[in-house]
């Protein structure tokens, strides 16, 4: 968790930003720079993502006074960075890599399924069944980071916006310019990869 309820603190933070308080800028950057970069990366790729976020921050500063509060501050930030990234795309709609299933392991392996769609073997039962316990293992955290780092950019961005930032599906569709059904597929593909990783970790204690 980010440990930071932005919606509740929007007004206060906004007032401090408008007043030019450096600590408020720091707070905003600390919480949103990485997530914004993931959004930029999903739209325009890794090479230009950092530059796009830097440009987006300047755009944020320029329009801070005009922020209308029709959306939450975080949705506004993600929209700005997405627009900045989209404006650099030369033409055409980008491809969403929902066809990417390679490396999903587990769930998408044909060998896991009988021809009538039943499980060949029951999914193994996991012994550690609380997120806190799993995340307390250093090896687990490292393995999870590695798995997340290997996700395609679209899946990373969707996970960030949905699981960490708690945005609504509709907001994610607008920000990333993808359909609701694609967002749902991307979320499931990402979770399926993490499922396969946790399953392997539970079975072997290794990454």
């Amino acid at each position, binding site marked *: 968790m980010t440990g930071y309820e932005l919606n509740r603190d929007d007004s206060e933070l906004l007032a401090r930003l408008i007043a030019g308080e450096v*600590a408020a*800028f720091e707070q905003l950057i600390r919480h949103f720079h*990485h997530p914004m970069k993931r959004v930029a990366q999903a739209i325009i790729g890794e090479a230009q993502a950092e530059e796009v976020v830097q440009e987006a921050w300047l755009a944020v500063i320029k329009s801070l006074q005009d922020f209308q509060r029709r959306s939450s501050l975080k949705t506004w930030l993600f929209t700005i960075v997405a627009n900045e990234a989209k404006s650099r795309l030369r033409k055409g709609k980008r491809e969403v890599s929902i066809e990417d299933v390679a490396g999903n392991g587990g769930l998408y392996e044909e060998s896991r399924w009988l021809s*009538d769609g*039943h499980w060949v073997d029951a999914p193994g039962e996991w012994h550690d*069944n609380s997120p806190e316990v799993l995340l307390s293992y250093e090896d687990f955290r490292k393995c999870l980071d590695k798995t997340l780092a290997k996700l395609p950019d679209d899946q990373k961005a969707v*996970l960030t916006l949905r699981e960490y930032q708690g945005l609504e599906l509709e907001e994610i569709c607008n920000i990333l310019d993808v359909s609701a059904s694609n967002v749902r597929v991307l979320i*499931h593909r990402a979770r399926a990869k993490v499922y396969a990783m*946790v399953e392997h970790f539970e079975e072997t204690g290794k990454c």
Partner: protein
Amino acid sequence: MLSCKELAQHQASDYLDGQLTLRQRFGVQIHLALCDHCRRFIKQLKLVKKVLQAKPEPIMDEVQVKSLADRLAAVHREQKKSSPPL
């Protein structure tokens, strides 16, 4: 009838996220009532979702945070100077 494969590969996250139609949701619930394997799978996928939500975001390098914040605050000051509030 919904197969285990269809459930695991396509409907499981939508089920957890409340994105299925009433009819699809009912199909999943019937399936889960009858299938131990899928009940276990859904329970564990729910754990995956919780792990992802509970995982802390990577921490940004403080030097980078401070230098960017200083730069933005300076831009903000310049802008205020050139267009004072009415």
